[in-house]
């Protein structure tokens, strides 16, 4: 589905657990999720911790939407550039 969105000119990030499927099928911007039954959550943690985890994953995803990519790329959490961190902190 993300491929069709990109074909239409809308950048899209795929947050998914089984990254190899997404890479092979050809999603261009991929963020690895936590686990299949809870991609953006971790049962057992407090609600606050889960929301914090969610925020991190989504920030990575939003980063991915701002990155120039050449083909299927896994956007990792550490790829946030310092300048971008400053930009977001200033808001």
């Amino acid at each position: 589905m993300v491929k069709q969105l990109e074909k239409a000119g809308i950048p899209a990030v795929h947050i998914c657990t089984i990254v190899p499927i997404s890479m092979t099928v050809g999603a261009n911007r991929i963020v690895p999720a936590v686990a299949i039954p809870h991609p953006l959550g971790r049962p057992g943690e407090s609600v606050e911790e889960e929301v914090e985890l969610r925020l991190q994953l989504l920030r990575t995803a939003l980063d991915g939407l701002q990155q120039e990519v050449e083909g299927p790329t896994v956007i990792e959490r550490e790829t946030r550039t310092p300048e971008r961190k400053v930009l977001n902190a200033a808001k």
Partner: protein
Amino acid sequence: MPGKKRLVHYLNQFFGQIGGEEEADIPPRAKTGPVGPGVALQAALGDSVDIVGTVICGDNYINERPGTAVPEVMKQIRALSPDIVVVGPAFNAGRYGLACGMVAKAVSEELNLPVVGGMFPENPGIELYRQYLYAVETGGSAAGMRKAVGAMAEIIRRLVNGEEIGTPEEEGYIPRGLRKNVWHQQRGAERAVGMLLKKIRQEPLATEYPMPRYDRVTPAPPIQDMSQAKIALITTGGIVPSENPDRIESSSASHYGRYNLYGMDRLPAEEFQTVHGGYDPTYANQDPNRVLPLDAMRILERDGVFQRLYHYYFATVGNGTSVAKAARFATDIAVELKEAKVDGVILTST
């Protein structure tokens, strides 16, 4: 009994008769003899092949940490000293198909043994691992178990007897993408001219080599200024309002839904649920934001990281849904998003 070939069978938690989704996290373990579909397979194989053991592993366990899980599975397989390994059949189960494929690759590369399995052609296990096993072509569900077992037994028998396995078309297995040199009566030049003449006369002809379709999409240009951007959420995790008003199917979804997020800060568990039939719904039903992360998106929106969240989100179920249908959903959604001037999408999958 000397001379009997040893077969080891790999199964997931469900076919290994341990349990359903709730047992998808179990680490690998070995059982003596055949289990589940292995019993039917043993009957079909008769006396020359012995299913000496079955290795069972949870689909989530192996898919979430393949780097450690596959070696664990291989240790159990090695301990049984197989002459041949069978995986599945996995039909159209994606995680199971991938697991079977990973095991097939490891067995093939590390033990240099033949591997036989069965899958539906669209199973991602085929896309990634087709060259490591003879996967008989099956239907989409375990209703085809008997036929699959029969076809697998046939190929297993030939392999243990050292017989040549014919082409995919002849034997009913999914093309492995491997090239084999064969002698042909006519020279290549003659065959090519023959094909061209057929084409000119508009007669039916069969290609000797289908051109591979590398369906890559050029990445859309990145968003320049995220603080001004409108972002939309989509999920294939099946998060829908509790009554599932659009009756989205829990498998092989025929359509998608669009749901209003106006005025909502998070998805309340009492009002939303997952209808996806392919994963344990417990955690998503406890907190739908674990799959459709509305709460965190609202925080980021409030913080000005991006300008606005599109007021509708789109949901479908990714379980066994055909590639063609899913592509169509997205093409339709893209039309709406473009009209609404959405700048980027986050799509979550389970």
